[in-house]
């Protein structure tokens, strides 16, 4: 079946309302500059940026959808696929890479049973290999949602991942 990007019926109305409220506060004479903050907000609200949401943003900002999609696919921060509760971003910048970030990444993928940019089956994790996040002094460095982990080793990851699994289980219980 062909995708209809102009159909936004499946998007949560309440979230869409919040996004439109945010867009209403922007200076749309500077629409190009408003794009990234809007995408940021949309991803915060929806968790990811499905195509029809990108189309909606393009229409709201009066920009071609191709431009919006170009920005979304350029930055590894933005995701077109649903993301897990925790996004693990492993920095693959030069400093981190030479200090073994690839081995850390391999370990995380093994622990979560995923491929880069794919959500784990339990919906808990999405692992991303990202470009330099600007914390080379902590190399190899990764972030899990907002939290930064520096000087990590593959062995550290067992405990870190387990703590998030446990945290999620506790959230569920309470």
């Amino acid at each position, binding site marked *: 079946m062909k995708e209809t*990007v*102009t159909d936004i019926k499946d998007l949560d109305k309440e979230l869409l309302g919040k996004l439109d409220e945010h867009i209403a506060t922007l200076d749309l004479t500077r629409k190009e500059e408003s794009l990234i903050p809007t995408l940021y907000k949309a991803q915060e609200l929806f968790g990811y940026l499905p195509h029809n949401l*990108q*189309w909606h943003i*393009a229409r709201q900002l009066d920009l*071609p959808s*191709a*431009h919006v*999609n*170009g920005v979304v696919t350029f930055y590894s921060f933005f995701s077109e696929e649903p993301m897990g509760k925790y996004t693990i971003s492993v920095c693959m910048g030069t400093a981190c890479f030479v200090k073994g970030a690839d081995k850390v990444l391999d370990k995380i993928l093994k622990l979560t049973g995923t491929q880069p940019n794919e959500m784990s089956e339990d919906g808990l994790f999405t692992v991303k290999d990202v470009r330099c996040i600007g914390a080379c002094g902590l190399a190899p460095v990764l972030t899990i949602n907002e939290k930064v982990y520096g000087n990590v080793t593959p062995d550290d990851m067992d405990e870190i991942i387990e703590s998030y699994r446990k945290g999620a289980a506790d959230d569920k219980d309470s």
Partner: protein
Amino acid sequence: MKLIDKMVTCKINNIEVTVEQGTTVLEAAKKANVDIPTLCHLDLHELGAVNQSANCRVCVVENEDRGNLVPSCAEKVTEGMKIQTDTKKAVMGRRTSLELLLSNHPKDCLTCVKNLDCELQTLANEMNMQEIHYTGEMMSHPIDDSSGAILKNPNKCIMCRRCTTMCDEMQTVGVLSPLKRGFDVVVATAFHLDLGETSCTYCGQCVTVCPTAALAELPQTASVWRRLNNENRHTVVQVAPAVRVAIGEMFGYEPGEISTGKLVSALRRLGFDAVFDTNFGADLTIVEEAKELVDRIENDKPLPMLTSCCPAWVQFIEQQFPELLDIPSSCKSPQSMVGALSKTYYADNVGIDPKNVRMVSVMPCVAKKAEAAREELNQDGQSDVDYVITTRELARMIKEAAIDFRTLPEDSFDDILGESTGASTIFGATGGVIEAATRTAYEMMTGKELKNVDLKQMRGMEGIRETSVQVGEKTLKIGIAHELGNARKLLEDIRDGKSDFDAIEIMACPGGCIGGGGQPYHHGDTSVLDKRRKALYAMDTKMTRRKSHENEMVQRLYEDYLGKPGSQKAHQLLHTTYSAKARI
């Protein structure tokens, strides 16, 4: 006070050049008569589009003081700068850039649509590229022929961004964008939709500037060959006005060479059963359109009336301004009118079953291919036009048939749908349609003869032009725009109630159809467009009849078949409708 009056002096290959601050090394080198190869660079500032992406690195030169290579298309000249374009370092730098581009390019030149007309191929030849040392991963993206007009093969793309510059800056449509990054980058539509599902107007301006065959017309010559010399089919052809002043370029003539007679000869030699002139359809369009304009003015109907012969422009308004669909003229395009008549009036006249008639049209345009496929443009389920080939495609067919174009005798169109006036000839240039319409509307409204038919205030290459003509008591306010970015400005004014035009002509391509997406490639030389444009006006002045309603075969068509302009039968055959489309 001039803001930029500072001059800087540099040396290029030890030649001293003084230029304005802000000038690029490439421009300064031109001044010093030093040639630097370029590929992605494209300067069409006369048309409002400059591609200065500095992506391809084919124009690198050596900065002597710093000892590094700089892209000459983007590097600005500074005081005392010393540039060398022909050191080993510079030459090898350019060579490596090109070699890397070629390492990821399908080398199927022999069977490529751009063979011998490809800027990448030309450069490879000029740079003595006899071996490619790099092998690696090749791009493998799907080829997109969904639009029926444009063939998009991203595997031949060199990421020059010329297409996106044209689509964004000139046309303000923005259908293409680089997606992803690094090796994965591909110039694509939003969400990788098929081109046919997007807001592409098929104007083909991306095609006119693509240095390779990443974007080209979707060829239909094979289908046309199948219909020719086919006993079961009566295959007829029509030729648009702008084709005759451009096709000569493909056979070594100067731009603007008028080759109508040879063109007709060539079409007969190819085996078409009848050769018609789209100009006949243009005259008919004018009679119907002028009638519609007079009716709208006299009966307080919606104004301004917008011309509707440019298919890319029709797509544009349907997608971008769906709230304004009551203002374009309901007239079909000349292509479609001739098509509709070939399967009714002409078929009746020569006594053949309309079902066996196949109409091929030769257009300066790729959007006409998509127009021919529009559901609205048919009679009893039969399309008005069956196949559309571009000026380039016809030239290729003529070469394929080993017809020596330059020695062909002059021939003339088949009368019945072939007579034309000067008014129809200028359809191919920006401002021409509205000038032709005004010539006829003037006489319709006043009942008096228009003495001076040269409405020169409507001519020119300026993007938006405004003028007025006194027609009896009424001052007719006329607007003209070419390129869709300019059209957008006029439409926004109409939408916002800030416009008081009575009639507006819009053409999607720079200069009108003479600069269409199906014309011989201009390779960045915009003077070509002006020469074609002037040739059309020169043809007009040489015609004895210069007003569309004086076309005798058009008059006969009304007497014998349609009744009066605007009649019910005329509406049924010659008018169409528009519908809103999603903007992607």
